[in-house]
């Protein structure tokens, strides 16, 4: 990357405290596609001049997939260790690149001693737009293109965040088309509840293929989302349907970066 990524350890060594901690998450750290989105979120933070840092090698899984799978021990072990690190750096505000990290830190860490102001990156983008710090200019034009938004379950139903990602699309002057199952009625991509890490149970079809029917019905050329697991499932779904030529899957952060030519 052009800019260097500030870590909490460096900041603390220099006696500085960033305005916000960027919680990257496991997918954002290791999955190749999600890594790109992570860099895009950093580009946005850099572009608006927000002081931020990441934990880097001090970050560890929030424990979300362990908790959803029923392994509360492992979840709380992860949570306590993470909370110790976060509290150690006196973290107040966190932006996450993943709805699962967002949900876990926001809702489940307070009961274990970790209370922070947690937002998802689409909420950060929305507030930057509202403050006038982020526009859609200087980059690729999305004008006239049909975009549909796939609501990640842990952003939407789990936390009632429906408008922020849409606000990031609305300033593009595109045609935002909703799927038949959207917002609180949105259909899961199939990855939640630790399904990402196991083979699906026997059934008639894959959940992401079912979701593709909704996407195709809209005639959208871009599926936007805000979750690395949805990203994987939707991208696979597009492949299964052999629609790679017609439909792109993009994170809200990627779209924002492109629209601003960052």
């Amino acid at each position, binding site marked *: 990357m052009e800019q260097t990524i500030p870590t909490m350890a460096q900041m603390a060594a220099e006696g500085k405290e960033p305005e916000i901690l960027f919680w990257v998450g496991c997918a954002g750290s290791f999955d190749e596609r999600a890594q790109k989105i992570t860099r895009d979120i950093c580009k946005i933070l850099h572009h608006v001049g927000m002081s931020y840092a990441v934990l880097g090698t001090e970050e*560890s899984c929030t424990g979300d997939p362990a908790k959803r799978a029923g392994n509360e021990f492992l979840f709380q072990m992860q949570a306590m260790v993470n909370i110790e690190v976060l509290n150690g750096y006196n973290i107040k505000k966190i932006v996450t690149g993943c709805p699962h990290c967002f949900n876990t830190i926001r809702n*489940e860490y307070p009961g274990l001693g970790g209370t922070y102001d947690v937002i998802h990156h689409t909420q950060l983008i929305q507030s930057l737009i509202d403050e006038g710090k982020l526009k859609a200019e200087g980059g690729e034009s999305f004008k006239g293109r049909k975009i549909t938004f796939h609501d990640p379950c842990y952003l939407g139903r789990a936390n009632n965040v429906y408008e922020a990602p849409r606000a990031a699309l609305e300033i593009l002057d595109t045609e935002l088309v909703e799927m038949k199952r959207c917002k609180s009625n949105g259909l899961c991509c199939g990855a939640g509840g630790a399904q990402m890490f196991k083979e699906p149970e026997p059934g008639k079809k894959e959940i992401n293929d079912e979701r593709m029917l909704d996407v195709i019905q809209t005639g959208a050329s871009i599926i936007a989302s805000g979750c690395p697991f949805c990203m994987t499932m939707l991208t696979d779904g597009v492949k299964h349907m052999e629609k790679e030529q017609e439909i792109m899957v993009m994170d809200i952060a990627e779209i924002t970066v492109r629209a601003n030519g960052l």
Partner: protein
Amino acid sequence: MVGQVIFIIILLGAAYLFGRNVAKVRRNILLGRDTDRSDRPAGRWAIMAKVALGQTKMVKRPTAAVMHFFIYVGFVIINLEVLEIMIDGIFGSHRIFSKPLGSLYGLLIGGFEVLALLVLVSCVVFMARRNILKLKRFTSAEMTTWPKSDANYILVIEILLMTAFLTMNAADYKLQLLHFGHYATAGSFPVSDMIAPLLPSGAGALVAIERGCWWFHIIGILAFLNYLPYSKHFHILLAFPNVYYSNLQPKGEFSNMASVTNEVKAMLDPSFVPEPAGVSLFGAKDVTDLTWKNLMEAYTCTECGRCTSVCPANITGKLLSPRKIMMDTRDRLVEVGNNIDKHGKDYTDDKTLLDNYITREELWACTTCNACVEACPVNINPLEIITEMRRYVVMEESQAPASLNNMFGNMENNGAPWKYSQADRLNWAEKE
């Protein structure tokens, strides 16, 4: 006089039986673990007013919502008429409210009649949806003989009750026009005056029809009341407390198990002295390991299947059906309760909710997407039961699917669900 005595005996008998069955349901619900839902009473009253009384979650399916609304309003309002029937029955009076209420009475009766007709029509349409159109929601796997019959019994009983009510009014109206006996003119009967021409014109026959329908209607209502505790129709009562005790936290927030917190703290800090906690299982193997709220939800479920129809696992042909999770929980709880009645409270059979009712394949198909929770018109949460049972399978039995055990291992060893080293966590910054 004899009529009054018989009426009072039937009324008291019905009230006693109903009270006894409700007490049994209450005892069964309280077999569950404790959970505190006494916080934020103002918020709880508000959500009850909105979701239970106002039925705001029904509107996602407008056809069903409108017809359900007719039946619901009909049920609540026609009960005012039942109050009069009760008083008449006890004191041997006839339409006791008609004189004091004057013209308002006519208006009320007119309103009841219109509602009764709407209830009747709605019930007929609902029966058609179940038995002729065979909507998928009402014919899927767990809708076996009893749930299907239960639904039809409820609709048939309501149709019969409304028919009796209207026929009674029609006969009464005809007798009023004849100025027969104590049948004093009591307003207009907008619906039953359409039935009236079908009835005989002799006063004797009309009195027999009026009295017959009166007795059928009130005995029918008392019998129906006593059917409720055995039926999914119990939702008409439990929907209210069930919504009052809703989870008010964000849907994505799963409970942090305090028993685990104690052990984890002790593990991380040897000087930590855990608060003494009662010995209990991690998670749920049987209904008694669930909370009383989970059990109340099982009795509240009216098997509408909105949850199952939006479940991504179910839609794609997996075994999981959130509605079945609730039905199994209730069936098992009733079984546990019956065992207590028969053999005393320490009796245990060799069955459990896990495996005998809910299979592991069902549990592992869940994506925890909360669609079922969102869909439920009375705020039932099948996901909580699924999670509690996963906790039992994973923490008590160590029987998670192998791939999930791999994921747990990775997380323990390198702080990520995949086999990547924590030292490589910032490598993304070097690329591009």
